[in-house]
């Protein structure tokens, strides 16, 4: 038993729903109690889908238990096939139905439904959403895909995009265009928009593009083994990764790598002088392993940030993330405990967070800007406009998205210069963001008033520290811009502690500053 407050991933059957909802002509019969239908709203509300997920829930109640839950399942199954006329069905149980052991898969297979029945075994008490999606898609592919002649021209499949994915819709468009420029056609995109009939044609492609390892890797490995299709290992998010990806595709296909970079703006935007202020910005990254790995490379090599910490919530990617963290000289944080992530961010006091919707909330509370790079995401992360993460346009989108939450270049310098100005001070916030300007006197400590747990910057922490701050030093500290103040406090305190000093004066503050200068 483990207490959980907020979760990064839903249960595995929600992963199966992401696959079913992304596909067409497939139906999911889910043995589940009343109430589990809440998951529909993730798709209809967060992703604004205009039709219900293709899921029939048995919605059994207490009075059905021990009586005829098995019959309830059979009826639901028969009626779903009649009503929705799918090309194939997947069947499975949610956490509660797993306990009553009705074996929906076994039952459905013996019902003579006349269409392929794909049973799912998703252990609800051990695994989570990403596993559920990966396993479901793998089972669909394993059941339906067969070796077949390759297409005459060089084609590939795009694998891994699901419903509720972070920018999956637009990544498909971007990659399709990118591959087209090299003369490669897309055979099938799956699960997104694929029908079971399309799945049977997967084998016609020359290779697979694994877009998202979280949800497509098991299927790609199976297709490599059984259908002889190699798959790409580079996820083309960021300029460097996109170039590497096309080189990898060239190696697989024997074609010449081709890339039209005329609409690529990230490198110049990063090099232009306004971006000088981005230099060495301390960023913390958290999300699914794939997006964090891609974002770390962009942050360091394409934006000139300093990665001060990174981690992922999906254990399946723990090994990769640990190796990556080593490469970046930081400790990896592999956890699905939101409070641990918050504590790490508080301790590291980064200037920006690149995370999920959860980290956006953390950032809001701690007053740290945050840009979203990974699922889980909210309704605002399904924008109306075209905004991929992958490929050329993805890189442009990422530059804009990451810079937006920050105070702008020249503005940041002005904040330094006029930090005690009555209307142009730290708490006034960035001029391009909403919210009304706060006068310096009103803005005493807005965070502490609204948050139950005040951040490290509050007075309470000063008292508990081993060293005492002189009032003058404390005052001087307050004159340091808010986004580096936490770091300055910590550095000064560790500098003092290391030297056995019990008190911090203004001199100590500046000695520490000189010591840590970079």
């Amino acid at each position: 038993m483990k207490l959980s407050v907020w979760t990064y991933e839903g249960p595995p059957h929600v992963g199966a729903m992401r696959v079913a909802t992304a596909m067409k002509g497939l139906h999911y019969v889910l043995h589940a109690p009343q109430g589990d239908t809440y998951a529909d709203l993730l798709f209809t509300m967060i992703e604004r889908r205009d039709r219900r997920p293709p899921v029939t829930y048995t919605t059994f109640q207490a009075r059905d238990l021990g009586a005829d839950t098995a019959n309830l399942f059979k009826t639901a199954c028969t009626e779903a096939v009649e009503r929705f006329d799918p090309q194939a069905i997947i069947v499975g149980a949610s956490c509660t139905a797993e306990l009553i052991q009705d074996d929906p898969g076994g039952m459905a297979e013996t019902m003579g439904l006349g269409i392929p029945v794909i049973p799912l075994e998703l252990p609800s008490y051990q695994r989570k959403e990403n596993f559920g999606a990966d396993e479901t898609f793998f089972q669909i592919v394993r059941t339906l895909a067969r070796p077949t002649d390759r297409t005459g021209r060089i084609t590939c499949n795009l694998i891994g995009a699901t419903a509720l994915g972070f920018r999956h819709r637009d990544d498909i468009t971007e990659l399709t265009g990118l591959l087209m420029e090299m003369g490669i056609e897309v055979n099938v995109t799956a699960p997104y928009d694929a029908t079971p009939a399309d799945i049977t044609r997967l084998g016609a492609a020359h290779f697979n593009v694994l877009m998202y390892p979280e949800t497509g890797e098991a299927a790609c490995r199976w297709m490599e083994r059984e259908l002889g299709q190699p798959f790409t290992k580079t996820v083309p998010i960021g300029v460097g990764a996109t170039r590497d990806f096309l080189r990898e595709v060239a190696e697989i296909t024997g074609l010449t790598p081709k890339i039209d970079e005329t609409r690529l703006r990230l490198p110049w935007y990063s090099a232009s002088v306004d971006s000088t202020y981005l230099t060495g910005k301390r960023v913390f990254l958290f999300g699914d392993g794939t997006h964090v790995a891609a974002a770390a490379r962009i942050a360091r090599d394409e934006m000139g940030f300093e990665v001060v910490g990174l981690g992922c919530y999906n254990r399946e990617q723990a090994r990769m993330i640990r190796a990556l963290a080593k490469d970046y000289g930081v400790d990896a944080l592999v956890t699905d405990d939101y409070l641990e992530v918050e504590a790490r961010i508080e301790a590291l006091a980064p200037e920006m967070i690149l995370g999920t919707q959860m980290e956006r909330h953390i950032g809001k509370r701690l007053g740290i800007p945050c840009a979203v790079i990974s699922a889980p995401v909210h309704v605002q992360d399904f924008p109306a406009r075209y905004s991929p993460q992958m490929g050329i346009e993805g890189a442009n989108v990422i530059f804009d998205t990451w810079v937006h939450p920050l105070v702008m270049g020249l503005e940041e310098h002005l904040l330094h210069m006029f930090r005690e100005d009555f209307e142009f001070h730290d708490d006034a916030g960035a001029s391009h963001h909403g919210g009304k300007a706060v006068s310096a006197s009103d803005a005493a400590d807005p965070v502490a008033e609204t948050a139950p747990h005040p951040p490290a910057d509050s007075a309470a922490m000063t008292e508990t520290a081993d060293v005492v701050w002189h009032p003058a030093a404390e005052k001087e500290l307050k004159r340091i811009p808010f986004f580096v103040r936490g770091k300055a406090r910590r550095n000064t305190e560790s500098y003092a502690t290391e030297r056995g000093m019990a008190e911090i004066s203004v001199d100590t503050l500046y000695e520490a500053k000189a010591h840590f200068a970079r």
Partner: protein
Amino acid sequence: MMDGAHTQSGCRDAPLLKERGQREVFCGLTAIVWLHRKMQDAFFLVVGSRTCAHLLQSAAGVMIFAEPRFGTAILEETDLAGMADAQVELDREVEKLLSRRSDIRRLFLVGSCPSEVIKLDLAKAAERLSAKYNPHVNVVNFSGSGIETTFTEGEDACLAALVPELPETQDRQLIVAGALPDVVQDQMLGLLDDMGIGPVTVLPTMRADDPAAVGPNTVFALNQPFLNETHAALIRRGARHIAAPFPFGEEGTTAWLRAIANEFGVDQDTFDRVTAAPRDRARRAVAQAGATLHDKSVFLFPDSQLEIPLARFLTRECGMTATEIGQPYVHRDIVGPDMALIGDGPVFSEGQDVDKQLERARDARADLTVCGLGLANPLEAEGLTTKWAIELVFTPIHFYEQAGDLAGLFARPLRRRDLLKVDAP
């Protein structure tokens, strides 16, 4: 218009279309989202699965607090293997929680589908933990599971679990049951107080130490129509129910207050003096906000259990016609007075077979379809105008001063459809 209410039977005895099939509803755990805001020293510990945690997060929609006063003790493979372990594990999690959160005075162990299927005895656990942590923390158990409760019934189960804990009193008093936003609750208490009705106790109390008691001289009123078990539990403690329409809109609020005023012997002059001004305001506000609704039709899917009283408000105060009024459950003792005020015509349905009901809704093509979040966008995409029902439990809608807002909630989707000049492809 109100005075004829007790002599006519309207749809009080209308037949019910009983449906069995797929239900598109939340489970009772959802009620924790508003209950924890109302009970400010309570923690709601769901003993369940990752699905339960995911539901709470999805229903809450926003994550305002780093550490909210609810959480899920997620059962793992090892807990399912042996029962004794699960109890020990629960004790450990509670210990950790309470040592970190000294502000918690009431701890609810909330049962879920999995905890009930494996027959994890949370009542016993609550007793054991109460003995350990009393008097600082009181531990109470209730079920919010989907196999036992539908959506708002979670609040019912919670309040019903509190009733046996109440001390006995012989005093003549009024209990009003149902969690309301503070501002609305204060308006309600103000109206009752102005008529000289008291003492009044509200369930749930905001804090553990707020006085509340029950006994044979207690009368009680419900301000939420889903409080079936609470109703039964209060009657078991000797209290007597004041049946009335629910306080939605001007008419509902007046009827609700009138029933209580009659019980307490308030004279007509006093009643009129206290209610005249807010009644008039409410009528004007509904007329204004609800103008769009006049002569429009409405189809209500079963969701929050507020459907019958709301249909009464929409048909009688906003001039709408109801085609179907669905409720997860119909308890005539409780919603009978509202049914009696609804004119002939609508189909009353109980339970759900969602695909069949969707077919009826498509056939009816009502001007406004009230439904859950899972159905709203798909129906909008089919050209229907919808109002999502969850907003009705998260928004202040009771009593006079909110009557206009309530009409406005239903009118907004219609006004919006009129405003938009570009069709969705």
